[in-house]
């Protein structure tokens, strides 16, 4: 069953045409990795999916509900979709626990006690139960990113978007974040991951998209993309990255 369906997506910033007609399907439980050179519009594609940016043209469906429409509240859409950022973006003034609780209490309307136990459960899931009273500035990058994943998971999203989740991390912390993401994939979460971690993409992705100049150049299984890419552009990019 199709979880995310994107049709004919266009987005421009001024004279810069960032997305040039993107069509995309992600099935329930699938992990889709999006690779491509920087500036190719990968982040914009993710941001359009949860309506942080509104597309100029085209349709986005989550479980067959058209979400970029006037009848749908963007807050409702974003509640269905978890997002993890390159720079973590934890709320700096709140403890790890309260970062996770905020959406539960304010958006889902849970009472404080229920939200607390749910938040503690989610922190446990990413292996940070003992850090719940720490503030973001007291955590390492890897720990911050795991709290950010817990914050997104707590809302019980249907899809998780990852926007280069390990690009701002010191090498020593990358694996702990990737491990959490792998476990999430095994549990059957639908995921769209923009990443430069080719090892992760090879191992976890159900399919990979090579994205260039605002368009999908090629889509295929990890083997197809990495071992026998069909397009010259893909070949060049993959060759450079894998060496």
């Amino acid at each position, binding site marked *: 069953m199709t979880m995310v369906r994107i049709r004919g997506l266009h987005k421009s910033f001024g004279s810069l045409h960032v997305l040039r007609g993107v069509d995309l399907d992600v099935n329930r439980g699938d992990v889709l990795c999006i690779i491509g050179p920087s500036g190719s519009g990968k982040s914009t594609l993710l941001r359009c999916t949860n309506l942080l940016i509104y597309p100029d043209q085209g349709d986005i469906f989550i479980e067959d509900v058209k979400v970029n429409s006037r009848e749908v509240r963007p*807050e409702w859409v*974003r*509640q269905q979709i978890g*997002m993890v*950022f390159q720079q973590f973006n934890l709320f700096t003034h709140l403890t790890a626990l309260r970062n996770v609780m905020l959406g539960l209490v304010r958006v889902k309307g849970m009472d404080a006690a229920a939200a607390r136990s749910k938040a503690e459960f989610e922190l446990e899931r990413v292996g940070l139960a003992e850090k719940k009273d*720490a503030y973001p*500035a007291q955590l390492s990058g890897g720990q911050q990113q795991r709290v950010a994943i817990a914050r997104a998971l707590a809302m019980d999203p249907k899809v998780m978007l990852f926007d280069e989740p390990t690009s701002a991390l010191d090498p020593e912390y990358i694996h702990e974040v990737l491990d959490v993401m792998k476990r999430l994939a095994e549990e059957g979460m639908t995921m769209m991951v923009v990443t430069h971690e080719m090892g992760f993409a090879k191992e976890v992705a159900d399919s990979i998209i090579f994205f260039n100049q605002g368009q999908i150049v090629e889509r295929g299984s990890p083997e197809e993309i990495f071992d026998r890419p069909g397009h010259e552009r893909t070949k060049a990019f993959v060759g450079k990255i894998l060496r």
Partner: protein
Amino acid sequence: MVQRRWLESLKTWVPRWRSSVTGRADFQRNATRFVLRVLAGLGITALGFGLVIWLGTLRYYNLGYAESILPGLGQGFLVTIRLVAVVIPLGFALGFLFGWARTTRSLILRGLGAAYVEVFRGLPPIVLIFFSYLITTLAILNISKNPFIAGDVALWMGAIALSLHSGAYQTEIIRAGILSVPTGQIEAADSVGLSRWQTMFRVTLPQAFRVSLPPLGNEFASVIKDTSLLNIIGWLDLAQIGLLQVPAALKADFNLVFIIWIEIALLYFVLTFVVTKVVRFVENAYKVPGLEAAEL
């Protein structure tokens, strides 16, 4: 229900106060420090008064005089406190609203905020005070012909004019605080599903205040002393009561003039000191562990 939610939101403004057990320990330490600091300020003032009395016992001037002007100055001090109690909250409310307005997407609100700042920051407070006093007096006299009502209302209009002036400065302080919150914070709040309103109160403002509080304390200290401008329209505040004593003092003994001004200075100092320590207290409550520079 509505009332409870209001209370809830107020509590998160000082988020650490109820955050955890460690939060409570910090609160107690913060409160203790506040009391100690205020006591230290009062101690400095007491030393000042002690110096005045000491000079009197050395017969530099008539000691009885220092005492005799105190009740009058005390009256003026109370008037100044009343003015401060109006001007600071009102100025802050204006600064908060216009500061917020200047950061919204609405072109109208932003324009309004900009116009407010340019006008009320650009005009000297003394002109604003006079203008509002005169206009109010004329307006009320036209309607009621009762000069007493006109006088009272016009006096307070002067205080409001000073609030508008201070509010213009505070607008920029609040705006700077809001602008200091990275857009990533707002994107994160959006992606969790918070509404724009919730994002403002739960995410942006608590972080903005942390940045705005030190300059706000500055502005409060400054406007406390600016209330002395209000005596030009007839407020018998601390400075004015002191001024009224000067001619008599000059006739009796030149040294007495110094005594008057020293006592005025000490009383203003107490007020400024206490208010800035209150700001400091709130500042500490907003502290985020790990984000602060090492505390000396």
